[in-house]
């Protein structure tokens, strides 16, 4: 395919890359005074890219290292929108913290480019570069409050453990390359078909481990609670949704495109990861006192469901993954926005005990948090229920009865800690007036809550066919 059509298919990335370079120069010239307009420009670029992605065509270009198919376009649209919302959230948050630097929205945009490279990766080099682009920006964002001890600790921890996982991933990639003789997913699939070697499986397991770190699935989850607690909340709102979605889509692509023939082998690995995630996410959350740490354990458990959907290895599994990830992304974005909205005398409300009696102080936010918590828990009729419903549907179809039951049990255990938040907010004595909730955080939380209950039921009738058509062109088969 010629260069014009290649550039046409990579239009969302091109929009982002070109505009981020321009905005960077503008920001560097104007300095931190321009933080507001830099944020606005980055947000506009992300929204423009989301439109470009939504109406993008299909094709495989750049020697097969860039795939634009339905799944990639679907994922990119939502990733860009989530990143734009984070830019909005972060703008107010850092302004209130007097940490108003123009680099932040630029880093968000660059990490969005990394994420879209991940969802479009057609070979192992693009996979690695995309992952590194996203991770490197994420390390910096995690340590953005560099004068804060917890913030720097979060950044350093994330960086060291992330480098370790990159090392594992690269080791896996080199093994796969050595045994398959190619970086390209299709060529790897052909080589695996022709000549099954143990080295390939070894490499695959390492690749899965590297990506499981990115999504914080169980044996590789160590960084999650500390980073969630220490990093600035808007950054966590980003980490919890978009990069995980991107890494999950990437994992789906690697497994279903390059290693479709080895389904029996990798399904076992994914099921083990899923079970461990259920266990650690469910039990670990019980003892937490910090709101963000609690959500970290909740996200570990939720990644278990995503892994379960992937393990099915069917189109239905990938579709369940897409719907689950989008619904979950909305819920976490809402919960973290609500956390940003809550502060008492300029100090963020971070402990669960500090939420005590919130219903008497701020009724609307209490309702929003309640709805979002019930949704993450998977209570019908909230949106989280539908996400899990599709995941279990895919798992049962693939015959993983036992693991689906384990997932249900984990949901029941996790219900305890979500219900504890709700109980504390509604029935305990209040702890005094809150500061005025910032406009943007408040409204993103309301909107997410409104999505979780009444809107999702209608939105799903649109999302479902979208995901269905997206999966039909998965890997351009």
């Amino acid at each position, binding site marked *: 395919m010629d260069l014009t059509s290649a550039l046409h298919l990579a239009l969302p990335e091109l929009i982002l890359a070109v505009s981020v370079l321009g905005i960077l120069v503008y920001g560097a010239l104007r300095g931190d005074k321009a933080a507001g307009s830099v944020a606005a420009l980055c947000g506009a670029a992300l929204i423009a890219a989301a439109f470009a992605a939504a109406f993008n065509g299909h094709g495989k270009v750049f020697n097969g*290292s860039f795939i634009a198919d339905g799944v990639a376009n679907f994922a990119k649209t939502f990733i860009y929108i989530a990143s734009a919302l984070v830019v909005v959230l972060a703008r107010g948050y850092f302004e209130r913290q007097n940490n108003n630097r123009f*680099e932040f929205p630029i*880093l968000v945009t660059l990490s969005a480019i990394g994420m879209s490279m991940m969802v479009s990766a057609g070979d192992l*080099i693009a996979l690695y570069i995309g992952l590194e682009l996203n991770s*490197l920006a994420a390390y910096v964002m995690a340590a953005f409050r560099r004068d804060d001890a917890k913030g720097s600790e979060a950044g350093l921890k994330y960086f060291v453990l992330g480098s370790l996982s990159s090392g594992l991933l690269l080791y896996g990639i080199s093994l796969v390359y050595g045994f398959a003789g190619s970086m390209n997913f299709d060529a790897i699939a052909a080589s695996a078909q022709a000549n099954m070697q143990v080295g390939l499986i070894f490499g695959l397991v390492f690749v899965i481990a590297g990506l499981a770190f990115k999504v914080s699935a169980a044996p590789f989850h160590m960084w999650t609670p500390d980073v969630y607690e220490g990093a600035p909340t808007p950054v966590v709102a980003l980490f919890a949704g978009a990069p995980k979605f991107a890494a999950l889509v990437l994992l789906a692509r690697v497994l279903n495109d390059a290693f479709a023939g080895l389904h029996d082998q990798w399904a076992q690995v994914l099921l083990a990861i899923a079970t461990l995630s259920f266990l650690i996410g469910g039990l670990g959350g019980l003892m937490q006192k910090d709101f963000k740490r609690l959500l970290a354990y909740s996200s570990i458990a939720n990644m278990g469901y995503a892994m379960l959907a992937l393990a099915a290895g069917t189109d239905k599994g990938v579709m369940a993954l897409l719907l689950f990830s989008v619904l979950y992304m909305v819920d976490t974005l809402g919960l973290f926005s609500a956390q940003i909205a809550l502060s008492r005398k300029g100090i963020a409300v971070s402990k669960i005990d500090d939420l005590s009696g919130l219903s008497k102080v701020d009724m609307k936010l209490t309702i929003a948090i309640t709805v979002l918590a019930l949704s993450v828990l998977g209570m019908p009729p909230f949106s989280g229920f539908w996400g899990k419903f599709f995941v279990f549907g895919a798992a049962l179809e693939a015959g993983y009865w036992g693991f689906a039951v384990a997932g249900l049990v984990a949901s029941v255990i996790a219900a305890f800690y979500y219900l504890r938040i709700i109980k504390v907010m509604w029935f305990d004595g209040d702890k005094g007036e809150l500061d005025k909730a910032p406009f943007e955080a408040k409204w993103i939380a309301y909107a997410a809550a409104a999505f979780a209950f009444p809107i999702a039921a209608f939105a799903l009738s649109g999302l479902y066919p979208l995901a269905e058509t997206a999966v039909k062109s998965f890997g351009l088969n």
Partner: protein
Amino acid sequence: MLAIAFYILAAVTVVSGALVITARNPVHSVLFLILAFFSAAGLFVLMGAEFLAMLLVVVYVGAVAVLFLFVVMMLDVDFTKLRQGFANYLPIGMVVGILLLIELIMISSAVAQRGAAAGKSPQVYGAEMSNIEAIGRVLYTDYVYVFQAAGLVLLVAMIGAIVLTLQHRTYVKRQDIHTQVTRRRKDAVAIVKVKTGEGIKE
């Protein structure tokens, strides 16, 4: 002629490599390291890989070794202290070294017999094209996408380093040459009539 050059360069590489770890003065170690890189670059040239040779000199000597030299000279690292456990760690180090040596011999004998990577021999460009030209063609055609993306990764690294380390200290007084030069007498000097016995109020 080629053989003589090879043996000289190889000998220098091995000897300077050994001196890197045995030299007492850390600055000498770094200088020997640079020598080792240079002679390894010479070996690459003998193999006809002039681009790799240049890369080795530019990247390792130009950046890494000079950085080492900076660290060694700028930081107050007590190398005699670091060296104290040398005898204790020697046996483990020897085992690791011998294992690595065995692996290297195994790999090179396997490659010598069967060629590299899954029996596929590397694609050979026409003899009229130099190495650099061939690499450039691949880099800017087949891999242009990841090449540009790698550029973005480096950009992120640069932004990150600045974000995390640059501090604008407002309390530091800096010289502003423009205001200094354009200062007038009336900006700086005020003539005040002072009453006797009262002094000047601020």
